[in-house]
Protein backbone atom coordinates (compact mmCIF):
# COMPACT_ATOMS: atom_id res chain seq x y z
CA UNK A 1 0.00 0.00 0.00
CA UNK A 2 3.02 2.26 0.53
CA UNK A 3 3.73 2.16 -3.19
CA UNK A 4 0.58 4.19 -3.93
CA UNK A 5 0.84 7.98 -4.16
CA UNK A 6 -1.79 10.18 -2.58
CA UNK A 7 -3.84 10.45 -5.77
CA UNK A 8 -3.98 6.68 -6.15
CA UNK A 9 -4.95 6.29 -2.50
CA UNK A 10 -7.73 8.84 -2.92
CA UNK A 11 -8.98 7.02 -6.04
CA UNK A 12 -9.02 3.66 -4.28
CA UNK A 13 -10.95 5.26 -1.41
CA UNK A 14 -13.49 6.88 -3.75
CA UNK A 15 -14.06 3.65 -5.71
CA UNK A 16 -14.50 1.71 -2.47
CA UNK A 17 -17.08 4.25 -1.31
CA UNK A 18 -18.97 3.96 -4.61
CA UNK A 19 -19.01 0.15 -4.29
CA UNK A 20 -20.39 0.54 -0.76
CA UNK A 21 -23.04 2.90 -2.11
CA UNK A 22 -23.86 0.30 -4.78
CA UNK A 23 -24.27 -2.29 -2.03
CA UNK A 24 -26.61 0.01 -0.14
CA UNK A 25 -28.65 0.73 -3.29
CA UNK A 26 -29.18 -2.94 -4.16
CA UNK A 27 -29.26 -4.68 -0.79
CA UNK A 28 -30.26 -2.13 1.85
CA UNK A 29 -32.78 0.14 0.16
CA UNK A 30 -36.30 -1.33 -0.17
CA UNK A 31 -37.85 -1.95 -3.60
CA UNK A 32 -40.28 0.75 -4.67
CA UNK A 33 -43.89 -0.41 -4.46
CA UNK A 34 -45.08 1.26 -7.66
CA UNK A 35 -42.04 1.29 -9.94
CA UNK A 36 -40.23 -1.86 -8.84
CA UNK A 37 -36.46 -2.31 -9.04
CA UNK A 38 -36.00 0.37 -11.73
CA UNK A 39 -36.55 3.03 -9.09
CA UNK A 40 -33.05 2.18 -7.77
CA UNK A 41 -31.71 4.34 -10.62
CA UNK A 42 -32.92 7.31 -8.58
CA UNK A 43 -30.04 7.21 -6.11
CA UNK A 44 -27.19 7.61 -8.58
CA UNK A 45 -29.24 9.69 -11.05
CA UNK A 46 -29.97 12.49 -8.58
CA UNK A 47 -26.58 12.20 -6.85
CA UNK A 48 -24.64 12.66 -10.08
CA UNK A 49 -26.86 15.60 -11.06
CA UNK A 50 -25.99 17.27 -7.74
CA UNK A 51 -22.29 16.42 -8.21
CA UNK A 52 -22.43 17.92 -11.73
CA UNK A 53 -23.93 21.17 -10.40
CA UNK A 54 -21.13 21.24 -7.84
CA UNK A 55 -18.53 20.81 -10.61
CA UNK A 56 -20.07 23.63 -12.65
CA UNK A 57 -20.07 25.84 -9.56
CA UNK A 58 -16.31 25.20 -9.48
CA UNK A 59 -16.14 26.34 -13.13
CA UNK A 60 -18.14 29.48 -12.29
CA UNK A 61 -16.02 30.33 -9.25
CA UNK A 62 -12.75 29.51 -11.00
CA UNK A 63 -13.72 31.67 -13.98
CA UNK A 64 -14.87 34.60 -11.84
CA UNK A 65 -11.70 34.45 -9.70
CA UNK A 66 -9.54 34.27 -12.82
CA UNK A 67 -11.22 37.32 -14.36
CA UNK A 68 -10.60 39.31 -11.17
CA UNK A 69 -7.12 38.13 -10.16
CA UNK A 70 -5.58 36.47 -13.26
CA UNK A 71 -4.64 33.57 -11.00
CA UNK A 72 -3.96 30.57 -13.24
CA UNK A 73 -4.65 28.06 -10.49
CA UNK A 74 -8.27 29.26 -10.53
CA UNK A 75 -8.39 28.64 -14.28
CA UNK A 76 -7.01 25.12 -13.83
CA UNK A 77 -9.72 24.37 -11.25
CA UNK A 78 -12.30 25.64 -13.75
CA UNK A 79 -10.93 23.38 -16.50
CA UNK A 80 -10.92 20.38 -14.17
CA UNK A 81 -14.46 21.16 -12.97
CA UNK A 82 -15.83 21.42 -16.51
CA UNK A 83 -14.46 18.05 -17.60
CA UNK A 84 -15.67 16.18 -14.51
CA UNK A 85 -19.00 18.03 -14.63
CA UNK A 86 -19.62 16.90 -18.21
CA UNK A 87 -18.91 13.30 -17.16
CA UNK A 88 -21.45 13.48 -14.33
CA UNK A 89 -24.03 15.23 -16.52
CA UNK A 90 -23.63 12.41 -19.05
CA UNK A 91 -24.23 9.85 -16.29
CA UNK A 92 -27.34 11.78 -15.17
CA UNK A 93 -28.74 11.98 -18.70
CA UNK A 94 -28.09 8.34 -19.60
CA UNK A 95 -29.49 6.95 -16.35
CA UNK A 96 -32.45 9.31 -16.59
CA UNK A 97 -33.22 8.13 -20.12
CA UNK A 98 -33.14 4.47 -19.05
CA UNK A 99 -35.46 5.22 -16.15
CA UNK A 100 -37.77 7.31 -18.36
CA UNK A 101 -38.08 4.51 -20.92
CA UNK A 102 -39.32 2.16 -18.20
CA UNK A 103 -41.59 4.59 -16.34
CA UNK A 104 -42.79 7.08 -18.99
CA UNK A 105 -42.49 4.74 -21.98
CA UNK A 106 -40.08 6.97 -23.93
CA UNK A 107 -36.39 7.70 -23.63
CA UNK A 108 -36.93 11.42 -24.00
CA UNK A 109 -39.68 13.94 -23.34
CA UNK A 110 -39.25 17.72 -23.77
CA UNK A 111 -39.77 18.46 -20.13
CA UNK A 112 -38.23 21.49 -18.39
CA UNK A 113 -35.74 19.53 -16.32
CA UNK A 114 -34.62 17.31 -19.22
CA UNK A 115 -34.29 20.24 -21.62
CA UNK A 116 -32.24 22.32 -19.20
CA UNK A 117 -29.98 19.35 -18.36
CA UNK A 118 -29.37 18.75 -22.06
CA UNK A 119 -28.56 22.45 -22.54
CA UNK A 120 -26.22 22.25 -19.53
CA UNK A 121 -24.40 19.34 -21.15
CA UNK A 122 -24.13 21.12 -24.51
CA UNK A 123 -22.82 24.35 -22.95
CA UNK A 124 -20.06 22.69 -20.97
CA UNK A 125 -19.14 20.36 -23.82
CA UNK A 126 -18.78 23.62 -25.78
CA UNK A 127 -16.61 24.99 -22.95
CA UNK A 128 -14.29 22.00 -23.32
CA UNK A 129 -14.19 22.58 -27.10
CA UNK A 130 -13.25 26.24 -26.53
CA UNK A 131 -10.35 25.03 -24.41
CA UNK A 132 -9.28 22.59 -27.09
CA UNK A 133 -9.51 25.07 -29.98
CA UNK A 134 -7.76 28.02 -28.31
CA UNK A 135 -4.04 28.27 -27.81
CA UNK A 136 -3.48 27.95 -24.04
CA UNK A 137 -2.82 31.25 -22.32
CA UNK A 138 -4.38 34.34 -20.82
CA UNK A 139 -6.75 34.97 -23.72
CA UNK A 140 -8.08 31.41 -23.74
CA UNK A 141 -8.62 31.46 -20.00
CA UNK A 142 -10.52 34.75 -20.12
CA UNK A 143 -12.74 33.63 -23.01
CA UNK A 144 -13.48 30.32 -21.33
CA UNK A 145 -14.30 32.08 -18.06
CA UNK A 146 -16.95 34.15 -19.85
CA UNK A 147 -18.39 30.99 -21.45
CA UNK A 148 -18.49 29.24 -18.06
CA UNK A 149 -20.24 32.14 -16.37
CA UNK A 150 -22.85 32.50 -19.13
CA UNK A 151 -23.44 28.76 -19.09
CA UNK A 152 -24.17 28.82 -15.40
CA UNK A 153 -26.62 31.71 -15.78
CA UNK A 154 -28.36 30.22 -18.80
CA UNK A 155 -29.42 26.94 -17.22
CA UNK A 156 -31.90 28.34 -14.66
CA UNK A 157 -33.18 30.66 -17.41
CA UNK A 158 -33.80 27.75 -19.79
CA UNK A 159 -35.42 25.82 -16.99
CA UNK A 160 -37.70 28.71 -16.09
CA UNK A 161 -38.62 29.39 -19.71
CA UNK A 162 -39.84 25.86 -20.33
CA UNK A 163 -41.65 25.29 -17.03
CA UNK A 164 -44.97 26.56 -18.32
CA UNK A 165 -45.17 23.46 -20.45
CA UNK A 166 -46.55 20.39 -18.76
CA UNK A 167 -43.76 18.85 -16.74
CA UNK A 168 -43.37 15.09 -16.43
CA UNK A 169 -40.42 15.19 -14.11
CA UNK A 170 -41.18 14.58 -10.43
CA UNK A 171 -40.48 17.51 -8.15
CA UNK A 172 -38.01 17.33 -5.28
CA UNK A 173 -39.01 14.34 -3.20
CA UNK A 174 -36.40 14.68 -0.49
CA UNK A 175 -37.53 17.99 0.93
CA UNK A 176 -41.22 17.17 1.35
CA UNK A 177 -40.66 14.01 3.35
CA UNK A 178 -41.90 11.59 0.69
CA UNK A 179 -39.02 9.12 1.06
CA UNK A 180 -39.05 6.32 3.63
CA UNK A 181 -36.15 6.43 6.09
CA UNK A 182 -34.14 3.59 4.49
CA UNK A 183 -34.41 5.16 1.05
CA UNK A 184 -33.44 8.54 2.43
CA UNK A 185 -30.40 7.07 4.19
CA UNK A 186 -29.32 5.25 1.00
CA UNK A 187 -29.78 8.42 -1.03
CA UNK A 188 -27.80 10.62 1.35
CA UNK A 189 -25.00 8.05 1.52
CA UNK A 190 -24.87 7.70 -2.29
CA UNK A 191 -24.86 11.46 -2.67
CA UNK A 192 -21.98 11.80 -0.23
CA UNK A 193 -19.97 9.08 -2.03
CA UNK A 194 -20.65 10.64 -5.44
CA UNK A 195 -19.55 14.07 -4.25
CA UNK A 196 -16.35 12.53 -2.82
CA UNK A 197 -15.76 10.78 -6.15
CA UNK A 198 -16.28 14.04 -8.05
CA UNK A 199 -13.93 15.89 -5.69
CA UNK A 200 -11.23 13.23 -6.13
CA UNK A 201 -11.66 13.33 -9.92
CA UNK A 202 -11.40 17.13 -9.97
CA UNK A 203 -8.27 17.04 -7.80
CA UNK A 204 -6.58 14.51 -10.07
CA UNK A 205 -7.60 16.47 -13.15
CA UNK A 206 -6.26 19.65 -11.52
CA UNK A 207 -2.92 17.91 -11.08
CA UNK A 208 -2.94 16.85 -14.75
CA UNK A 209 -3.76 20.42 -15.83
CA UNK A 210 -0.92 21.74 -13.67
CA UNK A 211 1.54 19.32 -15.27
CA UNK A 212 0.28 20.25 -18.75
CA UNK A 213 0.71 23.95 -17.97
CA UNK A 214 4.25 23.26 -16.76
CA UNK A 215 4.96 21.47 -20.02
CA UNK A 216 3.67 24.55 -21.90
CA UNK A 217 5.94 26.73 -19.80
CA UNK A 218 9.01 24.62 -20.55
CA UNK A 219 8.22 24.72 -24.26
CA UNK A 220 7.74 28.49 -23.84
CA UNK A 221 9.83 30.06 -26.61
CA UNK A 222 8.40 27.73 -29.27
CA UNK A 223 4.93 28.39 -27.95
CA UNK A 224 5.24 32.15 -28.44
CA UNK A 225 6.03 31.62 -32.10
CA UNK A 226 3.09 29.34 -32.81
CA UNK A 227 0.48 31.46 -31.00
CA UNK A 228 0.84 34.17 -33.65
CA UNK A 229 -2.00 33.78 -36.07
CA UNK A 230 -0.63 33.49 -39.61
CA UNK A 231 -1.55 36.18 -42.09
CA UNK A 232 -4.47 35.15 -44.32
CA UNK A 233 -3.18 33.67 -47.54
CA UNK A 234 -4.88 35.02 -50.63
Amino acid at each position, binding site marked *: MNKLNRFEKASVGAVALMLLAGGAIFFYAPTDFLQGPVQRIFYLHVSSAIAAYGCFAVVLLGGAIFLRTENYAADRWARAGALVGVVFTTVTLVMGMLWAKKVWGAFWVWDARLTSTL*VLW*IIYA*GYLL*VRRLTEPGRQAARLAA*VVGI*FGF*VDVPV*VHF*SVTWWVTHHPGPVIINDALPAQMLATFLFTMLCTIVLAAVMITIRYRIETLMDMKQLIAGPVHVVITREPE*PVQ
Partner: protein
Amino acid sequence: MNPFRAAIAVARKDLVSEWRTREMVPALAQFVVLALLIGNFGFQIDSRNAPSIAPGILWLALVFAGLIAFGRTFAAEREQSSLEAMLMTPASPVAIFAGKALAASVLLILCEVVLLPALSLFFGTPFSGDLVVAVLLATIGMASLGCLFAAIVARVRARELLLPLLTLPLWIPFIVAGGQAVQSAMGLPGSYDQAIGLLIDFDILFVVLTSLAARFVLDE
Protein backbone atom coordinates in the same frame (compact mmCIF):
# COMPACT_ATOMS: atom_id res chain seq x y z
CA MET B 1 -15.71 60.30 -24.59
CA ASN B 2 -19.47 59.88 -24.55
CA PRO B 3 -20.04 56.09 -24.78
CA PHE B 4 -23.35 56.51 -26.62
CA ARG B 5 -21.77 58.63 -29.32
CA ALA B 6 -18.88 56.15 -29.59
CA ALA B 7 -21.32 53.24 -29.97
CA ILE B 8 -23.32 55.11 -32.62
CA ALA B 9 -20.09 55.96 -34.47
CA VAL B 10 -18.99 52.30 -34.51
CA ALA B 11 -22.44 51.16 -35.67
CA ARG B 12 -22.47 53.85 -38.34
CA LYS B 13 -19.05 52.77 -39.59
CA ASP B 14 -20.22 49.15 -39.92
CA LEU B 15 -23.44 50.13 -41.67
CA VAL B 16 -21.67 52.49 -44.09
CA SER B 17 -19.24 49.71 -44.93
CA GLU B 18 -22.17 47.36 -45.54
CA TRP B 19 -23.94 50.00 -47.64
CA ARG B 20 -20.85 50.42 -49.85
CA THR B 21 -20.28 46.71 -50.44
CA ARG B 22 -23.91 45.50 -50.14
CA GLU B 23 -22.76 41.97 -49.35
CA MET B 24 -24.47 40.80 -46.19
CA VAL B 25 -28.09 41.93 -46.54
CA PRO B 26 -28.70 40.49 -50.04
CA ALA B 27 -26.96 37.26 -49.03
CA LEU B 28 -29.01 36.99 -45.83
CA ALA B 29 -32.24 37.78 -47.68
CA GLN B 30 -31.51 35.10 -50.25
CA PHE B 31 -30.60 32.68 -47.47
CA VAL B 32 -33.93 33.09 -45.65
CA VAL B 33 -35.92 32.68 -48.85
CA LEU B 34 -33.98 29.48 -49.53
CA ALA B 35 -34.75 28.30 -46.00
CA LEU B 36 -38.47 28.82 -46.67
CA LEU B 37 -38.09 26.85 -49.90
CA ILE B 38 -36.53 23.95 -48.00
CA GLY B 39 -39.30 24.18 -45.39
CA ASN B 40 -41.86 23.92 -48.17
CA PHE B 41 -40.33 20.71 -49.53
CA GLY B 42 -39.52 19.24 -46.11
CA PHE B 43 -43.09 19.49 -44.83
CA GLN B 44 -46.43 18.84 -46.45
CA ILE B 45 -47.89 22.27 -45.88
CA ASP B 46 -51.51 23.16 -46.54
CA SER B 47 -53.73 25.96 -45.24
CA ARG B 48 -54.76 23.95 -42.16
CA ASN B 49 -51.38 22.98 -40.77
CA ALA B 50 -49.45 26.08 -41.92
CA PRO B 51 -49.82 27.97 -38.59
CA SER B 52 -48.32 25.03 -36.67
CA ILE B 53 -45.35 24.56 -39.03
CA ALA B 54 -44.52 28.13 -40.09
CA PRO B 55 -43.26 29.29 -36.63
CA GLY B 56 -40.71 26.49 -36.60
CA ILE B 57 -39.45 27.36 -40.09
CA LEU B 58 -39.34 31.04 -39.08
CA TRP B 59 -37.10 30.37 -36.09
CA LEU B 60 -34.83 27.95 -37.92
CA ALA B 61 -34.30 30.46 -40.72
CA LEU B 62 -33.81 33.34 -38.29
CA VAL B 63 -31.38 31.50 -36.02
CA PHE B 64 -29.13 30.39 -38.85
CA ALA B 65 -29.31 33.78 -40.58
CA GLY B 66 -28.31 35.26 -37.20
CA LEU B 67 -25.33 32.93 -36.95
CA ILE B 68 -24.16 34.05 -40.38
CA ALA B 69 -24.69 37.73 -39.55
CA PHE B 70 -22.92 37.63 -36.17
CA GLY B 71 -20.17 35.39 -37.46
CA ARG B 72 -19.29 38.13 -39.95
CA THR B 73 -19.42 40.93 -37.37
CA PHE B 74 -15.76 40.73 -36.45
CA ALA B 75 -14.51 39.24 -39.73
CA ALA B 76 -13.53 42.56 -41.30
CA GLU B 77 -11.91 43.78 -38.08
CA ARG B 78 -9.92 40.57 -37.83
CA GLU B 79 -8.75 40.57 -41.43
CA GLN B 80 -7.49 44.15 -41.19
CA SER B 81 -6.50 44.01 -37.50
CA SER B 82 -8.60 47.14 -37.00
CA LEU B 83 -10.08 46.00 -33.70
CA GLU B 84 -6.77 46.70 -31.96
CA ALA B 85 -6.78 50.18 -33.44
CA MET B 86 -10.32 50.80 -32.22
CA LEU B 87 -9.42 49.58 -28.74
CA MET B 88 -6.53 52.07 -28.63
CA THR B 89 -8.96 54.98 -28.96
CA PRO B 90 -10.42 56.50 -25.75
CA ALA B 91 -13.76 54.80 -26.51
CA SER B 92 -14.57 52.13 -23.92
CA PRO B 93 -14.60 48.48 -25.07
CA VAL B 94 -18.25 48.25 -23.97
CA ALA B 95 -19.18 51.14 -26.29
CA ILE B 96 -17.34 49.48 -29.20
CA PHE B 97 -19.10 46.20 -28.44
CA ALA B 98 -22.48 47.94 -28.24
CA GLY B 99 -21.84 49.59 -31.60
CA LYS B 100 -20.96 46.29 -33.27
CA ALA B 101 -24.03 44.62 -31.73
CA LEU B 102 -26.25 47.49 -32.88
CA ALA B 103 -24.99 47.27 -36.47
CA ALA B 104 -25.36 43.48 -36.54
CA SER B 105 -28.93 43.69 -35.24
CA VAL B 106 -29.82 46.28 -37.88
CA LEU B 107 -28.58 43.83 -40.54
CA LEU B 108 -30.61 41.02 -38.97
CA ILE B 109 -33.70 43.24 -38.80
CA LEU B 110 -33.28 44.04 -42.51
CA CYS B 111 -33.22 40.30 -43.12
CA GLU B 112 -36.41 39.93 -41.05
CA VAL B 113 -38.03 42.60 -43.26
CA VAL B 114 -37.72 40.01 -46.04
CA LEU B 115 -38.38 36.92 -43.93
CA LEU B 116 -41.66 37.85 -42.21
CA PRO B 117 -43.63 38.97 -45.32
CA ALA B 118 -42.17 36.07 -47.33
CA LEU B 119 -43.35 33.63 -44.66
CA SER B 120 -46.90 35.02 -44.83
CA LEU B 121 -46.78 35.08 -48.60
CA PHE B 122 -45.60 31.51 -49.09
CA PHE B 123 -47.43 29.78 -46.25
CA GLY B 124 -50.52 32.00 -45.96
CA THR B 125 -50.06 32.62 -42.24
CA PRO B 126 -51.40 35.85 -40.69
CA PHE B 127 -48.99 38.79 -40.67
CA SER B 128 -49.58 41.01 -37.66
CA GLY B 129 -47.98 43.62 -35.43
CA ASP B 130 -47.84 41.00 -32.66
CA LEU B 131 -45.62 38.82 -34.85
CA VAL B 132 -43.26 41.70 -35.63
CA VAL B 133 -42.99 42.75 -31.96
CA ALA B 134 -42.16 39.19 -30.86
CA VAL B 135 -39.44 38.73 -33.48
CA LEU B 136 -37.92 42.16 -32.80
CA LEU B 137 -37.79 41.57 -29.03
CA ALA B 138 -36.06 38.23 -29.57
CA THR B 139 -33.62 39.91 -31.99
CA ILE B 140 -32.36 42.31 -29.30
CA GLY B 141 -31.29 39.59 -26.89
CA MET B 142 -30.02 37.28 -29.63
CA ALA B 143 -27.91 40.11 -31.05
CA SER B 144 -26.26 40.92 -27.72
CA LEU B 145 -25.38 37.26 -27.05
CA GLY B 146 -24.46 36.55 -30.66
CA CYS B 147 -22.08 39.51 -30.82
CA LEU B 148 -20.42 38.65 -27.52
CA PHE B 149 -19.67 35.12 -28.67
CA ALA B 150 -18.65 36.31 -32.13
CA ALA B 151 -16.07 38.48 -30.36
CA ILE B 152 -14.97 35.47 -28.30
CA VAL B 153 -14.52 33.11 -31.24
CA ALA B 154 -12.92 35.78 -33.46
CA ARG B 155 -9.58 34.84 -31.92
CA VAL B 156 -10.09 31.09 -32.04
CA ARG B 157 -8.93 28.74 -34.76
CA ALA B 158 -12.15 26.92 -35.68
CA ARG B 159 -14.45 29.92 -35.24
CA GLU B 160 -17.06 28.73 -37.74
CA LEU B 161 -17.41 25.51 -35.77
CA LEU B 162 -17.49 27.09 -32.38
CA LEU B 163 -19.89 30.00 -32.86
CA PRO B 164 -23.03 27.86 -33.33
CA LEU B 165 -21.99 25.48 -30.56
CA LEU B 166 -21.65 28.30 -28.04
CA THR B 167 -24.43 30.59 -29.22
CA LEU B 168 -27.33 28.25 -29.98
CA PRO B 169 -27.72 26.87 -26.42
CA LEU B 170 -27.70 30.41 -25.03
CA TRP B 171 -30.35 31.49 -27.55
CA ILE B 172 -32.73 28.74 -26.43
CA PRO B 173 -34.58 30.96 -23.90
CA PHE B 174 -35.34 33.43 -26.70
CA ILE B 175 -36.48 30.67 -29.01
CA VAL B 176 -38.71 29.16 -26.32
CA ALA B 177 -40.39 32.46 -25.43
CA GLY B 178 -40.28 33.86 -28.97
CA GLY B 179 -41.61 30.59 -30.35
CA GLN B 180 -44.52 30.73 -27.95
CA ALA B 181 -45.25 34.36 -28.84
CA VAL B 182 -45.13 33.72 -32.59
CA GLN B 183 -47.38 30.67 -32.22
CA SER B 184 -50.00 32.72 -30.36
CA ALA B 185 -49.65 35.54 -32.90
CA MET B 186 -50.49 32.96 -35.60
CA GLY B 187 -53.61 31.85 -33.74
CA LEU B 188 -52.34 28.78 -31.89
CA PRO B 189 -53.21 28.41 -28.18
CA GLY B 190 -50.90 29.97 -25.58
CA SER B 191 -50.54 33.25 -23.78
CA TYR B 192 -48.99 35.95 -25.98
CA ASP B 193 -48.61 38.47 -23.14
CA GLN B 194 -46.77 36.04 -20.89
CA ALA B 195 -44.34 35.15 -23.68
CA ILE B 196 -43.70 38.82 -24.51
CA GLY B 197 -43.13 39.55 -20.81
CA LEU B 198 -40.55 36.76 -20.66
CA LEU B 199 -38.85 38.03 -23.82
CA ILE B 200 -38.50 41.50 -22.27
CA ASP B 201 -37.10 39.96 -19.06
CA PHE B 202 -34.55 37.92 -21.01
CA ASP B 203 -33.59 40.97 -23.11
CA ILE B 204 -32.84 43.02 -20.00
CA LEU B 205 -30.96 40.16 -18.31
CA PHE B 206 -28.73 39.33 -21.26
CA VAL B 207 -28.10 42.90 -22.45
CA VAL B 208 -26.86 43.74 -18.93
CA LEU B 209 -24.78 40.55 -18.65
CA THR B 210 -23.19 40.89 -22.08
CA SER B 211 -22.30 44.54 -21.40
CA LEU B 212 -20.58 43.45 -18.19
CA ALA B 213 -18.73 40.64 -19.98
CA ALA B 214 -17.75 42.67 -23.07
CA ARG B 215 -14.90 44.32 -21.17
CA PHE B 216 -13.21 40.96 -20.56
CA VAL B 217 -13.73 39.75 -24.11
CA LEU B 218 -12.54 42.81 -26.03
CA ASP B 219 -10.07 44.39 -23.61
CA GLU B 220 -6.54 43.37 -24.45
